[in-house]
């Protein structure tokens, strides 16, 4: 029986990857939820908008690399994020001006807007693929590990190694900073409060002199920041491939709805719920049980609840269960 090694094992294979993955999903989920709360439609172009932002970041990164600019141990992409965010916001303004605004003024039902966002999805997908192509792009540079498994073993003398990648640290820290600023903005500033009011009751908000154009603009700006950062962090962690971003959209939707759509805090936690359930259910616990059980009871099978083939299915099943038993999400949705 060896509890410390068991805990380190779980940290290494479940907690840290879960937090990283969850952060990436959480940023996307807040993006979906904000659009849903203020512009009132399910944005099916989410994944591809994130891919667009990431694509710009990739292009800027390679530009900086060709100029010889780098951040030393940190990935150069961090330097590219602000530029990517600005391009992303302009792209969103452009789309809003030429596509969504018309329907918003007409007060079209949300289903039609969701259909329109499918059109946007197609166009964005085309733009991304025409500019950068459909292939995998790895744009992570800098130091890969903060601490390697072997170093950790040597340092502490434990059997089990703990490897922490630089990008995992960056992802978690950046997400926490962004989310803190966002919640401060939504809850404490006047603009944030007027967004809340607009989301709760549009007509009342208009009566009290809130400018809808400004609210929409700020929503797209926040959305641009979240989408780009989330996309770039995912791309740095795995790699940039337009196709996976489209697939991630489904997980992001799941996270947003599980958390209660329209509720940014719920979406934030929803990201972690989805990420952890996916990892917890598909992780093979054999080694963990070897550590905590006496030798006589050691398991022979992998001790895996479901094979990793089903990791997407796990998140989707959780979503379906939540939708059936608590359609407003775990944390009550539809309040900003």
């Amino acid at each position, binding site marked *: 029986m060896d509890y410390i090694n068991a805990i380190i094992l779980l940290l290494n294979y479940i907690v840290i990857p879960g937090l990283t993955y969850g952060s990436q999903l959480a940023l996307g989920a807040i993006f979906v939820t904000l659009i849903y709360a203020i512009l009132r439609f399910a944005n099916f172009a989410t994944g591809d908008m994130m891919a667009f932002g990431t694509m710009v970041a990739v292009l800027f990164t390679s530009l900086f690399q060709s100029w010889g600019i780098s951040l030393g141990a940190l990935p150069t992409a961090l330097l590219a994020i602000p530029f990517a965010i600005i391009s992303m916001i302009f792209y969103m303004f452009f789309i809003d001006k030429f596509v969504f605004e018309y329907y918003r003024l007409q007060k079209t039902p949300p289903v039609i807007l969701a259909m329109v966002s499918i059109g946007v999805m197609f166009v964005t997908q*085309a*733009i991304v*693929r025409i500019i950068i192509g*459909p292939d995998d792009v790895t744009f992570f540079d800098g130091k890969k590990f903060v601490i390697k498994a072997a170093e950790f073993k040597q340092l502490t003398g434990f059997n089990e190694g703990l490897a922490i990648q630089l990008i995992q640290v960056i992802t978690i820290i950046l997400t926490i900073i962004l989310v803190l600023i966002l919640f401060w903005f939504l809850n404490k500033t006047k603009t944030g409060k007027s967004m809340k009011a607009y989301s709760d009751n549009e007509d009342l908000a208009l009566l009290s002199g809130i400018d809808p154009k400004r609210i929409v603009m700020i929503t797209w700006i926040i959305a641009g920041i979240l989408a780009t950062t989330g996309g770039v962090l995912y791309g740095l962690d795995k790699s940039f491939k337009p196709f996976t971003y489209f697939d991630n959209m489904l997980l992001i*939707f*799941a996270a947003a709805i599980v958390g209660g759509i329209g509720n940014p805090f719920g979406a934030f936690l929803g990201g972690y719920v989805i990420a952890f359930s996916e990892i917890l259910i598909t992780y093979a616990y054999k080694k963990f049980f070897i550590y905590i059980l006496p030798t006589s009871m050691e398991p022979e099978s992998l001790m895996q609840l479901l094979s990793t083939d089903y990791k997407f299915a796990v998140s*989707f*099943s959780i979503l379906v269960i939540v939708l059936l038993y608590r359609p407003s999400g775990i944390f009550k949705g539809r309040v900003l």
Partner: protein
Amino acid sequence: MKKYSDVIIAYSIMMVLIILIGIYQSWNMALSIFNMCLISAVMTMGANIQWGYAGLINFGIMGYTALGGLAAVLIAADPVQEAWRAGGLDILVSLGLLVLMILTIRFIIKNFNKSKLRTYGIVSIIVLGVITIRTTIEPGIDAIESVDPSTKGFLGGLGLPIIFSWIVGAFFAGGLAFIVGKVALGLRSDYLAIATLLISEIVVAIIKHEDWLTRGVKNVIGLKRTVPYEIDLQATQWFISLVEKFNSGKLNLISNIADKQILLNQLVKEGSSVFVKLCYSGLFLIVVIMILILTQKALYSPWGRMMRAIRDNEEAANAMGKNIAKQHLLIFVLGSAIVGIAGAMLVTQDGLFAPAGYRPFRYTFVIWVMVIIGGSGNNFGAILGGFAVWFLWIESAHIALFFIDLFTANMDDTHVFKIHLIESVPYFRYLVTGLGLLLIMRYRPKGILPEKIQVK
């Protein structure tokens, strides 16, 4: 006649476009586009019944298509005797256990009042049941998958003619739709869209990874056809003389007998593949026309009127004593069953079942674009949408190439920008379809052929 003039015009334009492809590119190409258009038309009619008649949004088309394909495999593939002997019993026992578990839960729900104890009981039955089923099924799956894994490794099907799978596919898809509808139809429209999309992802994940049933990503190939094979046709006398008769003008121009024979062989080769495609076109056309007649009849029947009433004002229809939940479920099942037929037709045409190919993009979103562009609520519009979008989907690469050549005419052929554009030609189809959807939704929100309701 005047009522249908726009339908006739739109369809004639579509036919002329396809014939033009036949003349300028090849008849093979034209027919394969035409066949896919027909299959798409069946799918769009299924989606249109749900969206256009009842206002239900079903983003799970991919799942029903995949189930239709699964039906084709289970009907047409040859049974694998060794696999049945190796693990069939385990599978059957687990299936029995699963049915037993569901029946027990049903029994408990029917006969006990809602309480905490009941919930815990059901949960523990599910957990216990899943564990027992997994322990019984695992050796069976291992045994089945180790039977000649490179060519078989699955239970196989019934070895019946693949045509039957069209009906079975409809039942499979309808059955799934019944379950999905039971649990999800109460949701609001956009939630329903997301829920159906994700459920269909789960279905495809199961089809993709349960190798003992579907061979998974290893694909099932060489499903038996109902139409003749090209190789057999090329050796058949009547077919050769038919081709000779058709091309007698061309053949008579050549005097040299050896050259004539070579040309004839080539023509026979081309002709055989065109002939096979024509056979499929005929079969598919029958299906499309049958479904079209049935749906048209339904649309103008009292039932269709009721569906429209429910769609346009649910509360009023409810107040008139219509059972909305039941009608929604019915139409959800019917529409999905039609999509299931299309899924089986797709596998029939290709003779191949490739679960990895079922992507939400191709089999859900593109189909929806077809429905919206064609005209929701109008069956002729849905078919037209299937034709027009699929045509664009295939031909937009050629169109894009033409425009790229036009705009970059004064550039060098080796210019980086030009090369990059030409390499990315396949992705212009997304752009063209997306822009098409956006423009139609903006300027003709009811689609090319809008819904027509006669008030008598």
